[in-house]
Each structure stands twice: as structure tokens, then as C-alpha cells.
């Protein structure tokens, strides 16, 4: 039996008086794609940010590949755990290629030409080889998010975190980003994804976690949660999502 790739034990985090995460426990095996859903403010972003320690947990243990993240150097941890943001957060003054190569050069120590070649390959992987020399402001939202994914991939992470990667996108641009994510999932990437895209959850997720008021209220394979949720709150939330999606597409 091999260790889980990611293990989160009794994770707690407060901001001031407000306890945002109240004891989170879950594990991810290699090649798992776990989708995290939950109402706004339930702590999904905070949970992801604790995993790569952009936010320092108050309590609990997080291990990646058996290593306690509290004992790891930030740069080592973040090479292993990549992150994709809701608002893309591309470096506005750099071309797509340089967005991807910056980490290669400054963190992984690649020489300039090596880094740029590798960046070109990553951009090709997300279908943007022809936009390598464009600046973020010259790209559509969907293209920007794909650069964001390429930037994370370039670090060769073992685990990729996605924080609502499509929720800032116009509906017609969501598909291209989901397609890239689907491809990564099929290719065996381990992914922890906060999203409310039901289709992606249904087709790509190995597990669905429902986060509510700082706790994982319910978890299981997507079909189980969609069809026979145990908790009324899960049912209500998912029903509302389904209605919303039907409204959008219909």
C-alpha cells in the first residue's frame, strides 16, 4: 500500500474571531481528481491556500507525498503543489512565454533559453503555442487562464490546486479551460478543484467533497452525491446549482 499523495488532518484556520476551517480531514491518492463544492464563504479558497501554505494553518497536519508541509521550505512545497487562480493572476508586464518561464528561471534554476523552450512546450500543451509572445491584456480570459495552467504545469507539480478556474470567465470561454483540465485529468495529474461546473464534476471527478461552514459535510463519488445525498443541505445546494446551470444553458 502506498501513502496518499495528500493528507489533511484536523486542519483548522481562523481569521480573528471567525473560525473558517473547523477540522478538515481528507486524503488524495495519486491521479485522484477531487472536486470541492460549497457555498460562498464556506472556506474553499482558504482550504486550498492552506495546502500550499499561502495561508498558515492554525492547527492540523498536512502532508504531501509523506512530507509534513510545515517542515518544508516554501519553494520546495510550491514546486510540488501548483495553483491556478480564479482571476488568473498573470504577470501583466510579461508575455505568455515569460509568465511560464519566470518560475523555471528563478525557482528551478533553468538557463534562459532552456526556460523559454520549456515554456513554449507548456504553452503548446494548453493550445497556445501561437500566442506565446502575446501579453496578458492581449489575450481572452480563457486564453489567460490556460497560460495560468501552463505556468503551474511548468514547475512539474505532483498536485495541482484549482480555485474556481472558470468562474470569472464568460460562458463561451469556459469550455476551452475545462477541456484542458479534462485532458490533464486523463493524463493522470492529481487535481484538487474548487468548481461549480457540474459537468466537469460528473465526468472527471473521482470524488466530490461538499464543504459547509468550515467542515466537510459530505463526500463520495459524484453520482452518489448528485443522486442520493445524505444531507438536506447538500441536496439543496446541488439542486440550486443544477437549476442555475439549466437556466444558463437553456
Amino acid at each position, binding site marked *: 500500500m502506498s501513502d496518499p499523495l495528500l493528507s489533511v488532518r484536523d486542519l483548522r484556520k481562523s481569521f480573528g474571531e471567525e473560525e473558517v476551517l473547523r477540522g478538515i480531514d481528507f486524503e488524495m491518492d495519486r491521479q485522484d481528481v477531487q472536486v470541492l463544492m460549497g457555498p460562498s464563504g464556506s472556506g474553499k479558497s482558504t482550504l486550498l491556500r492552506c495546502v500550499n501554505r499561502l495561508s498558515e494553518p492554525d492547527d492540523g497536519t498536512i502532508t504531501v507525498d509523506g512530507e509534513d508541509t510545515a517542515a518544508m521550505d516554501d*519553494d520546495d512545497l*510550491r*514546486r510540488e503543489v501548483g495553483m491556478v487562480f480564479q482571476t488568473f493572476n498573470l*504577470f*501583466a508586464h510579461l508575455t505568455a512565454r515569460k509568465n511560464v518561464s519566470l518560475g523555471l528561471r*528563478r525557482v528551478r534554476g533553468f538557463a534562459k533559453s532552456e526556460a523559454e523552450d520549456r515554456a513554449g512546450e507548456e504553452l503548446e500543451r494548453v493550445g497556445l503555442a501561437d500566442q506565446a509572445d*502575446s*501579453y*496578458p491584456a492581449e489575450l481572452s480570459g480563457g486564453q489567460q487562464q490556460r497560460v495560468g495552467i501552463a505556468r503551474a504545469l511548468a514547475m512539474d507539480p505532483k498536485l495541482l490546486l484549482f480555485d474556481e478556474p472558470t468562474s470569472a470567465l464568460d460562458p463561451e470561454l469556459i469550455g476551452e479551460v475545462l477541456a484542458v483540465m479534462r485532458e490533464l485529468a486523463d493524463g493522470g495529474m492529481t487535481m484538487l478543484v474548487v468548481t461549480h461546473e457540474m459537468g466537469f464534476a460528473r465526468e472527471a471527478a473521482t470524488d466530490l467533497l461538499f464543504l459547509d461552514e468550515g467542515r466537510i459535510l459530505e463526500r463520495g463519488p459524484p453520482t452518489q452525491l448528485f443522486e442520493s445525498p445524505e444531507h438536506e443541505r447538500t441536496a439543496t445546494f446541488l439542486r440550486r446549482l443544477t437549476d442555475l446551470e439549466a437556466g444558463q444553458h437553456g
Partner: protein
Amino acid sequence: MAESDSRSAGSIDVGNRYDPLEALGILAGALFWGWLLFRWLNDWFGGLFVPQSQPFLSPSLFEFFPALAFAVEFAPALASGVWLTVLLTIVGIALGFPIAIVLAGARVYGRATRWVALGYIELVRGTPLLAQLFVLYYGLGLSSFIRELPGVGTVGVIPEQAVWIAMIGFTINSAAYQAEYLRGAIESVDPGQLQAARAIGLSQVDGIRYVVLPQALRYAIPGWTNELVYLIKYSSLAAFITVPELFNRASSIASENFRYLALFSLAGLFYLALVLTATNLMSRLEDRVAIPGLGTSEGR
């Protein structure tokens, strides 16, 4: 940071179109600076072409137009003052800049250092520049210390101690103002970008260096233009600690010939030329480093 090639920021490319007014401006600027440079060279090397402070052409050639004759006669003496005005401005900006980066960084990202930086900035911005110059010149024993340094005021182009004190004063002063412009610019860079930098493993310092600052420095250009314009004009306060810069030269010549209005008008024209040069160069710089797709501050 100017790694961008000459791609135009938008679809309309105004930069390459021939503009007669702009060409005239460039010609006037070239003549003005060419003349200044010749004057400075001439005076530094003890009268290379004509005796120091003497015009290249005799003013009597321009007798038909008395104002012009006056300008030809006295502009050379003012030119040496312009040198000090330019020197004080450039030194103040250039040496103030690295200090400003540290101060602005401390203001935005520091904990205890934030208050130190704030104290410095408010102290400098809250007191008159003239008072600062007086304290440095009369108050701290700095004058006698600098005067004793080898070469000061006696060897070639090494300026005398008052100029050194003015340079120190303008550096201290400009650092505070530049820090505030920079702080505003740093805060206008979306903090999500620094997070993204840290999320790929860059340290906070590297994130600031490679991601935040290259953008903040661009956004600070309009502030710097202001600062340059102010420094050019406020450098005249150095006159009160005996630095023979442009204003000082004009008033000391006027005290001999009593032609105050004419001399200060002429000095005013020099200041205007310096300010126009500064604003023009800065707007060129701004266009040049504009991030494709984002436009310059004009468009924002």
C-alpha cells in the same frame, strides 16, 4: 525591464506619423541643449572657445532687437547656473531613487520598518525644504566637514561644499516624495500577482523584484514627471545656501545692473526649457515601456 519590442500599444499607431510641431520642438531642444553643452565645456576648461561667461557672438550684432541682445549678453553667465540646477535635480532624483524603493517597500510590506519609513517620509514632507537645507548647511557641522575633504571646491569641476550639501538635501527630500509616488504605484499592482509569484515558489522578495516592481516603476512614471518638475524649480532654494545655481546667478547679476525683470524673465525661460525637456522625455519613456494591451496612463 524595457524588454518589450516596439509593438504598438493599440491598433492606432500615432508614433510613426510625421508631426511638424514635434519636429520643431525636437529641433529647438537640440539647439538649446547643444548650446548649453558647448557653454559648459567652454567654461569648465577655462574658456575653451571664448572667455568664461562671454557670449559666442557679440551682443552688438543684435542691436536691432534689444531683448535678444540682452539675452545673448547674459545667457552665458546663466548657463553655468543651469549646470548646477540640472546637477542638483538629477542627483536628487537618482540618489533619492534607491532610497525611495527601500522606503516604499518598507511602507507596503514592512512591519516595524513601516513606521520608521512613515516617520521619515512625514518628517521630510511635513517640513519646508528651505528649513531642511538650512539645518544641513548651518546646523550639523556638515559644512566644515565637507570643506575639509580633499579636492572640494579647489580641484577642477569638483563643486564647493554648499553644492554637496544641496545634493544631500535634495536626495533626502526627493527620496521621501518618490517613496510616496512609488508606494501608490506598488499598491496599484494587483496583489494577486504577488500571490501567483509565491505560488510558483518565488520568495516574497523575488516576487516583489520580478513581478511587482517592474510594473510599479511603470505606473510611477507620471509621479516622477511631477517630481522632476518640482525639483527643477525647487532647486532654486539652494540659492539661499549660496549655491550659484540658475536663480542665484540671475539675482546676483541683477544686483549689479538692476535689470531684475529682464534677468528673472530670462531665468524663467531657462526653467521653462528644462521643465519642457523633462516632461517630454518622460512621456517618451512612458510610451516606450508601456505594456502592450494596457496602454499608457493617458488611456487609463
